[in-house]
């Protein structure tokens, strides 16, 4: 007799009704599977990545606002005002110098 044939003819069929109901009862009494450590780590990593993305976004917003403010200052003649104020500042220091 061939081995395949031997195992085919000797393969038992097993009814699972009783087993399944016993197992279901046991599973009902078993607490839900806990989250694995790996899953906790992956969730933590995901949260950190989100936080990093938010922080990067905030830095970009601050950078662009600063650049816009600087450009506005430049185009509004901020430097010209400072330069034109230089003689007055010089006169102020000249006036207080004799006191020392």
């Amino acid at each position, binding site marked *: *007799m061939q*081995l*395949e044939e*031997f*195992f085919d*003819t*000797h*393969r*038992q*069929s*097993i*009814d*699972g*009704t*009783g*087993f*399944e109901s*016993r*197992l*279901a009862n*046991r*599973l009902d009494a*078993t607490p839900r*599977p*806990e*989250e*694995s450590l*790996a*899953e906790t780590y992956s969730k933590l990593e995901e949260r950190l990545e989100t936080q990093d993305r938010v922080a990067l976004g905030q830095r970009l917003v601050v950078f662009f606002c600063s650049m816009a403010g600087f450009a506005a200052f430049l185009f509004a003649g901020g430097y010209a005002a400072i330069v034109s104020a230089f003689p007055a500042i010089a006169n102020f220091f000249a006036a207080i110098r004799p006191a020392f």
Partner: protein
Amino acid sequence: MSREEFNTFVTQQQEPLRRFLLNVCGGDSYIADEIAEEAFVRAYLNLNSFRGGCKMSTWLFRIAYNCFYDSVRKRGREVELGAARDIASEDLVQCNERQEELHSALKQLTAPQRDVILLFYMEDKQIREISQITGMNENTVKSHLRRAKQTMKTYLTNL
């Protein structure tokens, strides 16, 4: 995986798993069912750790295989040789001449040879799957299978 999906998985896998355990336990359906139940509970509790590196059925067989050898160690004897218990589970197997023939044939083999030949012929597992279940490398599985075939052929010819 939800509980309903797990129940479907149990329905699909209980027969091959319990048959395999029944045969490695030498026909002791009580111990086989105890181990199968423990394997399903362990699988359920560790569903999150299944990474999908193999078939889920292979993963379950691996758990059951470990449970079986844990049980053998705990009992301090070869469970498969303990034929003292009454084989009368209400939903299990026709205990007849054929089953006796099968178990006496399997007794000619060493434990690894028996495990490998049962998984290969009875449960139609591939060499790779058997390797994943037993933790042996594929060449060792092939070697055990070859020796088991030779022993079984000799035994069956002499019957």
